[in-house]
């Protein structure tokens, strides 16, 4: 396989459950993690709803995949950029999101947050700094 490491950004702009995009995006991220690329996830617009805590899907008979985001650290996916303005517009704050942490192997397995709240301008910078942008 090719040796060069590329920057991959997975852009999540859709809410979970109403459509399958969020779930199938997560499946790509999990598989993609095996390819040792430089992976980031962007959550903006309705995509921020994917990370909201206390999702309970028993009443709709659909699998609750929100806990899987907490496994991303095990897959070395540790950069989840969440846009502040998108949260604001939807009446959410960072406290409404579930805690997603990773253990930093290079720092004696210290637990660090994977979610990084960024402004819209910073999100634009993140997007402009990629080799490959995958949209869902």
């Amino acid at each position, binding site marked *: 396989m090719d040796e*060069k490491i*590329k920057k991959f950004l997975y852009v999540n702009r859709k809410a979970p459950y109403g459509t399958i*995009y969020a779930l*199938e995006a997560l499946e790509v991220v999990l598989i*993609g993690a*095996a*390819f040792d*690329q430089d992976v980031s996830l962007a959550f903006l617009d309705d995509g921020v709803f994917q990370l909201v805590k206390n999702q309970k899907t028993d009443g709709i008979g659909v699998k609750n995949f929100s806990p899987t985001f907490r496994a991303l650290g095990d897959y070395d996916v540790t950069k989840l950029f969440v846009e502040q303005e998108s949260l604001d517009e939807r009446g959410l704050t960072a406290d409404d999101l579930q805690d997603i942490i990773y253990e930093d192997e290079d720092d004696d397995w210290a637990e660090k947050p994977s979610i990084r709240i960024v402004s819209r301008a910073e999100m634009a910078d993140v997007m402009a700094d990629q080799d490959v942008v*995958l949209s869902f």
Partner: protein
Amino acid sequence: MKFGVVVSEGPYTHQASDSAYNFVKAALENGHEVPRVFFYHDGVNVGTRLSIPPQDERNIQKNWTALAAEHDLDLVICIAAAQRRGLLDENEASRQGKDANNISEGFRISGLGQLIEMGIQTDRLMTFGD
């Protein structure tokens, strides 16, 4: 230049597969390479050989199959998305104990790794979806 192409919506309901087809055709005709087209989400339905569109409409599946034959395209249907939606090739059908398969000529079923690999190995990644 090498273009990787993702089609993430089904045929007829969305224009995505038509746009992707027109893009791929134009790219190939202008000296570019399209090493792979990856069908994901409902896009996997583009690969069924059992659709019967009215004669006065374009035949999306046949157009892709013809383009694949002409340019030796690698049309890959995502296995995880395909299994959910009932798209099977002969191998998958027998592995899963199903009594039929429905994949068009020119398409193959493979893993999501093919999407990542396409992103790594091409110069530009185009996504056609909804």
